[in-house]
């Protein structure tokens, strides 16, 4: 049984935001337009947080991609009265759109605020709708949605592995979330944490690794590898 997870190398991430649009394209995420965006109702499943440090001229800027952390002890799951939000055997923090009645409790409980809500029915002005990914359902008004670790790709990969690999297991790297696939600096690495040889397992064990808001004990499946500072030519 796999356990899906991700490693985010903040030392690689350049804030290019390819992941953000890749996520939109893969998961049929609507755009809400300026008025709604101004109200704070954009639908990004994945955002790159930026924080300033210091003042000019000694000023620094830090980027941090934040997506659903697929916590093992997810605060968002138990508060849902209809089981719309629950934890799969493979460690995915799943959202069942059909069961969601829109209490928005999960969004409050999520300390990472990575859940986005359909305040209106999504619109794709024709023929933009032709781009919609048939593997991903389109969500209606009143439904909470969030990063799924591209569960549709996971399922495709499973079928593919059953058909083509003698051991029926997914080869590390053969399966990538849309964001990881597009990530130009290879900062996002997606894979199976159960597989000790997978790159994501290797990176998650890194000394630079830490969890976002780890002190809350939510047990995220996403590990952040902290930015390093420069050391003169190779000496460590």
């Amino acid at each position, binding site marked *: 049984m796999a356990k899906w997870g991700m490693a985010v190398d903040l030392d690689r991430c350049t*804030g290019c935001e390819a992941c953000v649009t890749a996520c939109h394209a893969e998961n049929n995420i609507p755009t809400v337009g300026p008025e709604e965006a101004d109200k704070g109702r954009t639908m990004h499943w994945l955002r790159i947080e930026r924080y300033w*440090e210091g003042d000019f001229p000694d000023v620094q800027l830090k980027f941090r991609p934040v997506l659903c952390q697929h916590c093992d002890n997810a605060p968002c799951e138990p508060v849902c009265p209809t089981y719309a939000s629950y934890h799969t055997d493979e460690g995915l923090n799943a959202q069942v759109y059909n069961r969601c009645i829109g209490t928005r409790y999960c969004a409050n409980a999520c300390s990472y605020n990575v859940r986005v809500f359909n305040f209106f029915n999504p619109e794709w002005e024709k023929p933009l709708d032709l781009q919609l990914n048939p593997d991903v359902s389109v969500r209606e008004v009143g439904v909470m949605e969030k990063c799924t670790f591209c569960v549709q790709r996971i399922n495709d990969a499973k079928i593919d592995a059953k058909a083509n690999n003698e051991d029926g297991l997914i080869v590390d790297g053969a399966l990538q979330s849309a964001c990881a696939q597009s990530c130009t600096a290879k900062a996002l690495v997606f894979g199976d944490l159960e597989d000790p040889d997978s790159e994501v397992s290797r990176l998650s064990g890194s000394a630079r690794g830490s969890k976002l808001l780890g002190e809350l004990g939510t047990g995220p499946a996403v590990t952040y590898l902290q930015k390093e500072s420069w*050391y003169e030519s190779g000496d460590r």
Partner: protein
Amino acid sequence: MDRRQFVKASAVTGASASLAACGNPEDQFIRFISDEILPAGLAVSRRSICPLCPAGCGVEVRVMEGDIDVVRDGVAGVVKTGLAKKLEGLPAHPVNQGKLCVRGQAAIQVTYHPDRIRGPLQRTGERGSGQFEPVSWDEAIGELSSRLGALAESGGQNGLRMITRPLRSQRGFLIREFLERFGAPPAVTFDIFGDEVLRDANFQSFGVRQLPTFDIASSRYLLSFGADILGTWNSPVSQNIGYGDMRQGRPGLRGKFVQVEPRMSQTGANADQWVPARPGTEGFLALGLARAIMAAGTRAPADAGRAGALIEGWSDGLDAYTAEEVETVTGVPSRTVEQLAREFAENLPAIAVIAGAPLAHTNGMFNALAVNALNALVGSVGAGRGVGFTPQPEGLEPVQRGERTIEQLANEILESPAGAAPPVQVLLVNDTNPVFGAPPAMRVADALSGVGYIVSFGSFLDETGNLADLILPDHSFLESLVDHVPESGGGRAMASAAQRAMRPLHDTRDMADVLLEVARSLDFDEPLEWETYEDLVQTRFDTLSPPEGFDSAWIAAQFGGFWVDQSPSSPQPDPPAADIVPRAYSAPQFDGSADEFRFHFLPYVSQSFLDGSLAHLPWLQELPDVVTTAMWSSWVEINPRTAEELGVVEGDLVEVRSAHGVIQAPALIFPGIAPDVLAMPLGQGHRNFTRYASGRGANPIEVLAPMRESETGELAWAATRVNIARIEGEGGLITLAGALREDEELSR
């Protein structure tokens, strides 16, 4: 022509109106025989090339079966066909190695854009009124042919002109051939934020008129002077890939990255050290480093070769550029200068990069040459040595840009004596928008109004297309055969090509095929020898040496999406024999006096929209700019202290005034910008560019002064001084982030 009218107009040809006429397909459901049979529910992968920037990344298109509304013989219905669903990087492609940037990811919306022109249009109202009516392709092409035919008979071949964006595909070659054989002057390429200064500098220093390719992955020190290498400049994806490996790709070794710029860009945000230098003094700083390195004795002036010889005083070790002098000129502390010099010389291979604003000053050429010399000094130039040049495939070299600039063309039109026949009878506009992109001082709009007949190949009604008399909408890149010769991003000569990924959605035609058809009807003395654009590309590609296992480069290119030269890369061409003229540093000149206009004005290429050509894509409009988190708007970046002094808070509407124009935009408090600099992203401020971009934000180009780079005459777009004032009104700034800092403390 406002959106509603536009939709109306295009609708008549396109499906929607006919659908309205025949009721919606649900009511009377007619399913035509499939255009394309695909395995139901399964994805097919096809190849293409991202057209949005000159990098030319290979694209893998995920195509799946889908239904589209169509009208066949006046009957509305649906038909199954293959539809592009998602764009990914082409894994094996030498430039982007399976990765794709944010703009490339959004490129798919170009094809499905609701405001795409769905068929040929003919102007009905006043020019610029935006009133068009649909016409058939035969009429449209007939109209163009007859006008050109008339020109040819009256011997007025000179009256045909063409403006195009820089093309690195064979379309450029076709355009050249077409104009040449018609007898018209070569096309004017318009690319206001292009890199001509750097290309010229590279030609001077290294004999290659080309943008460099950087081996960032294996470098240990990366020193960038204002170059947005991780954002938009040159070949961003390949540079990002290299950057990632430079950081964490080599166990125990992590390269250092230093960025020199007065306003922290997305690239600068990733730097280990960020050094704000006064605008236009970057070259001086580079030479300061060079002097320190030479003074340290680790390197001799001669090591820089020709590149060094181009700098006055180089051979004597640049005594003028002492660290103290550098501090007074650039504002960079002498300590920092020495530290940078030491690290740059000690951590080889070290790369110095310069691009963007530093080259857009009156002394841009000097800045470029200085950095070239610095690279040469530490021996970073040459194949496999940090700074290289991607060999161009022989026989497939892209057409070099014409001598004439858009401004010269404009002047020619404007200066023609009144009453006389306009010097430009027919103007072809291909995929470029000078009315939006050229500073008002160049008076491009006025000039175009003096043109006899304007034909646009654009897919969207933009400011320039709006002035057209005839619009012959091109296919989107997914709908047509595409080819590209990357200028940089790889070690070997290469050329990409791909067949169309899907059938055209609308009644559009490939610009190249239209030109060929027109040419046929004109019967040139030496006719164009290609039936279709595909013939042309094939014949051109087949001049290349076929790789292993293929008997033609054309087949190979289509098979893999690209062709790479297998032969050992040809040596760099020798520098021009022309005698060397050493340049001396001259302080940058700015338009507007410092006391009247307090601030340097720094427009920058937007992460989302580049120069504005992508402002029509909703995904990019709603993409929070990673540094400012702003969406759907434009803004003016102000240092917090300056803002406090001016009594400006975030979101206030401010007026940016130069000697040449004034624009209004909301203020955005930006800790990473020098107190005497105001920065503003390009891209917004379109008057007329689809429902998503029209009337949104302000266009910084409108305040730019027509300053020149002294040697090349390129526009010095960073040499304008402005003033700023808070004014009444809604700023309309939309940002995603709630706080600037992670340890944000609220008022106590």
